[in-house]
């Protein structure tokens, strides 16, 4: 039984995703958690590539790695003195949490295995950016516009929340 190279790579990437997600979950140091999130996000981007979603992969890298991660790191540094990181990343109720999650995951995997998924026969790999662009300005125009408004509101909200109150 031979294993082809792309399957091997899939397992490797999945390992990176799951492994770094584990570090995020179990690390005592919040900076380590935040940094290993990089592995998860990058790995998921890799999985997107496997799934033929080139545009989403690029967006994942740009937004998550380039934007959200940096934002989180900033927040970490703004709210902690680096020295007492160990103390502030407190974890409570590990055992019940683990048990609950393990049960949940078991059921989930069981459900995935049991379900008879709909599958298409031939899976085509084609560039998706143009298609997605057309859909955004066609069928998905309204959600697209609403997304723009949501982003604008989030922007304004973030500014008003985080700035110091100006006394009249």
């Amino acid at each position: 039984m031979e294993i082809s190279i792309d399957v091997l790579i899939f397992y490797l990437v999945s390992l990176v995703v799951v492994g770094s997600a584990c570090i995020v979950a179990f690390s005592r140091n919040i900076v380590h958690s935040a940094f290993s999130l990089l592995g998860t996000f990058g790995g998921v981007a890799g999985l997107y590539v496997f799934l033929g979603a080139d545009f989403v992969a690029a967006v994942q890298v740009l937004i998550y790695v380039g934007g959200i991660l940096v934002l989180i790191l900033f927040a970490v540094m703004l709210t902690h003195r680096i020295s007492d990181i160990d103390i502030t990343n407190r974890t409570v109720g590990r055992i019940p949490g683990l048990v609950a999650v393990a049960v949940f995951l078991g059921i989930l995997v069981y459900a995935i295995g049991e379900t008879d998924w709909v599958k298409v026969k031939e899976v085509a790999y084609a560039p998706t950016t143009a298609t997605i662009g057309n859909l955004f300005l066609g069928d998905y125009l309204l959600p697209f516009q609403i997304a723009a408004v949501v982003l604008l509101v989030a922007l304004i909200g973030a500014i008003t929340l985080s700035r110091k109150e100006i006394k009249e």
Partner: protein
Amino acid sequence: MDHPVQTDFLRWIVLFPLLGAAVNGLLGARIQERAGKRMVAFIACAPVTLSFLFSLWAYSRLLGLPAKERFLIDRFYTWIPMGSFSVDVAFWVDPLSAIMILVVSGIGGLIHFYSIGYMHDDRSMWRYFAYLNLFTFSMLLLVTGDNLLVMFVGWEGVGLCSWALIGFWYTDHTNTRAGNKAFIVNRIGDFGFVLGIFLLYWTLSGQGQGTLAFREIAEHVGLLADLELWGVGVATLVTILLFIGATGKSAQIPLYVWLPDAMQGPTPVSALIHAATMVTAGVYMIARLNGLFSAAPATLQIIAVVGAATAFFAATVAITQTDIKRVLAYSTISQLGYMFLAMGVTAYSAGVFHLLTHAFFKACLFLGSGSIIHAMQGEQDMRQMGGLRKVMPATFRTFAIAVLAIAGTPFLAGFFSKDAILWQAWATHNQLLWGVAVFVAGLTAFYMFRQFFMVFFGQCRADHHVQEHLHESPKIMTYPLWILAAGSVVVGYLGLPAFLGGSMLDHWLDPVIHVPHGEHHAVMEEVGVMSVSIVAAAAGVVLAWFLYYVRTPSRDESPEARGFAYRVLFNKYYVDEVYQFVFVGGTLLLARVGAAFDRYIIDTIVDGTAKVTTILAWFNGLFDKYVIDMLVNAVANVTFAVGNNFRRVQTGNINSYLYVVVGAVVVALIVKLRYWS
């Protein structure tokens, strides 16, 4: 007409100034420090000069073509290729835009040179020139863009530069406020403009001809003929929306309020942006889309009335103003009103003609006033001036020529162009509008000569200190004045009336004006109409001579000493105050109403709900105490114990809530797999 000549040099007309703006904008501070202001000025003036030379080249190429085929196009690249919707960044030059690029780069170039003298004491000269170049770029983009979207980019660009230059001396709060006012008022107009573009594209694509290119719009105007939206013709609706954009940019009623305040900027800027070029963008846009506008007679009627009303309104305000630049600002609004009147009576080429002549004499007047303000050490109040004729001979002479031109002295530029508009208004049977326009011609002559006499004649009323320093401006400032003054004389001969040989400009513009010219008319009638306007202008001059030359104006002339009418005019009909009250006050009022609604209605409801709950709880308590307790005390104790235990569920802690959620999902999954699969 179907095959415009492809070229690839038109892009440079537009791109040179952008290059200058980029160099000065990004590196200007360092250049000015290392290589001096001369270098900065050179970097700014060279691209505009090159643009002008390239414009001349384009013009000569046009001349070489047969009249009906005079179109040059330069497809730069495809900007938005999206299915059926495609927009090119393409520049085109036809007879109409050829006039505009020559005016923008030519007069713009002169004003660049003039600025070297005017701004040479300013610390941030590089910033000034970067903005000015960026403005030239945007304006050239506006006039050469081959479709509405590219034009709109230029349209917004000039608005941005105008804002930046009005507030150029940003340390003074009034300047930045004036800039913001201009920007915000323009925004209202731009909103209409962009809606007009949307509606036009939407309707045309509904007919299978979705396009924004001017040439194709002109071809497909017929498709709009019978379409209606909410009971109004689509063509009317589109043109009204576009005209709203024009009222913002070209300072017409009701959106003209920003232009007088825009005079806070440096004077060359007032000359270039707020007199010669940017404010004429609206006129250009209508002339460019004349086929579309001609398909909407109702809109044309509105445009004509708005134009005449603006001309009258601004002219009456101008006769009382004492600030030298404000008089010119209101005069500009008034002259723009003339141009819109021309558009409204479908005299497109007459309107463009007036645009052209006005660019020359108004730029000359503004630059002249700049020269005066320069000499007066920043003083702009005409009551402090007087007698400058002897000290500043070059400024005096050029200013005089421009005043004569704008007042409508026979055989100068303003006379021919104004007469062309008046005649067209008469010939299209708009006698009432014609009457207003003739009256405004008289007013124009009056307020221009009032300014002329107050500034240059009589005794100098300035402080001793200022008087000692009075001087003529350097040559770099007076030469542009002379060129513009010469233009104010010569340009008029491009558009002679029919009985003096006919208008060259009409023939030149013929391929782009898609409406037939007015019917041939009697010579005697035209001469008669012309002489009426000459008489009106002469009356204005005589009145000004009597009031401001014979009776010398006093230094402390104040509006309070005059009658009611004078005060109303001096305060510009209190329009600013009304706008402040209605719009700014209205917005605040709306906010207060909202707050009051929140406080009294919403809060009352919330409080009421709370009260009802409290009362219910009280009854509940009574029930509990006297019924339950008395009946089964033990059960109450059990209930209490259970409640006390369950209280821990309500921890206020997200984590514990999530346990419940996870548990619920697990249960749901199990149920699903066990019993529904």
